[in-house]
């Protein structure tokens, strides 16, 4: 009776929120990426807090089982966030490539200067 998808959702949201804040606190997660996780936790918390919102939205989308909406929301959010992360990874790849190139060129410069000094 007490243990339903809503209460599990609320508990999970709170634990997740605390976990995200802890990670930022310990510098394992940068603030700019934590924002979206915190936003998700809060939205999940609000959605789970009362069946009314879920029921209305489920009706509107013609979903027979309202709690399925919670899962739908979770899945869609994860998909979008994943896409966002892959763009972040793409940008980071470019930066790493650039760094490797700069280091190689620097090494070449340093070694050629050492050779010149040899004379």
């Amino acid at each position, binding site marked *: 009776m007490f243990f339903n998808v809503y209460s599990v959702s609320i508990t999970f949201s709170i634990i997740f929120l605390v976990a995200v*804040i802890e990670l*930022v*606190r310990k510098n394992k997660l*940068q*603030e*700019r990426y*934590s*924002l979206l996780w*915190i936003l998700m936790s809060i939205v999940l918390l609000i959605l789970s807090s009362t069946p009314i919102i879920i029921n209305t939205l489920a009706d509107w989308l013609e979903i027979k089982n309202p709690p399925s909406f919670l899962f739908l929301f979770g899945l869609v959010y994860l998909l979008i966030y994943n896409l966002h992360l892959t763009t972040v990874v793409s940008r980071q790849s470019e*930066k790493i490539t*650039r*760094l490797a190139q*700069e280091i190689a060129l620097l090494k070449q410069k340093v070694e050629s200067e050492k050779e010149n000094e040899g004379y």
Partner: protein
Amino acid sequence: MLLFVCYIVCYMYMKVGGVFLNILVLIPAYNEEKSVASVISQVRHYVPGADILVINDGSTDATSEKAVGAGAMVVNLPYNLGIGGAMQTGYLYAKYHCYDIAIQVDADNQHDPSYIHKLIQPIIDNSADMVIGSRYIKETVYKSSAARRTGMVFFTILIKLLTDKWIKDTTSGYRAVNKNIISFFALNYPVDYPEVDVLVKLYRKKFRIMELPVEMKARKTGRSSITPIRSVYYMIKVTLSLVIETIKTIEE
């Protein structure tokens, strides 16, 4: 290991060089080819004994060449890191080369270099660890939009809540720091929008922060990188960061 080498170098320098303090003026620059040379020559005029380092944050214009031409040392970042990454590069340089005082001066000519002496004096006297040049202590000629002023007030109140200190100009980049803070910033400097963020971090570490009034000029050349949407995102992000930072404080 690097720290050890640094101490040896510093020790040797002190023995040979005498008592005067090494001052480094840090000028972060992103596409400021029109104003950077002017800023450099003004700095050289007002603080002739100081070294000047321009941190070229991946500019696509002639900023780097203009800076070299004006007689400053230049560091060219391979790509744009933002003000946080660029300034940290400057502090790393200051740490490796054992500077005693580092002062940030913007490349867009908004910071008036004639105030540099005023800002570094409390550091020389050891009455403060960081000195902020503030636009809002006295009535100044500087005019900003209503939106900006609201943002400023918001941050001032937030900082007051979190650190119990009244800092009127929390986003001013015109700041001078001493050697201890140089070391601290070289290791910890927020990547996004650092000016407000570090105030809480420094308060945690019990550093002494002083605010002095200065005149700032309106931006004449180039474009500001702050847009309205970015401002809102900025405010949310920094508020969150400050709150989390403070949670750290409470727990320790």
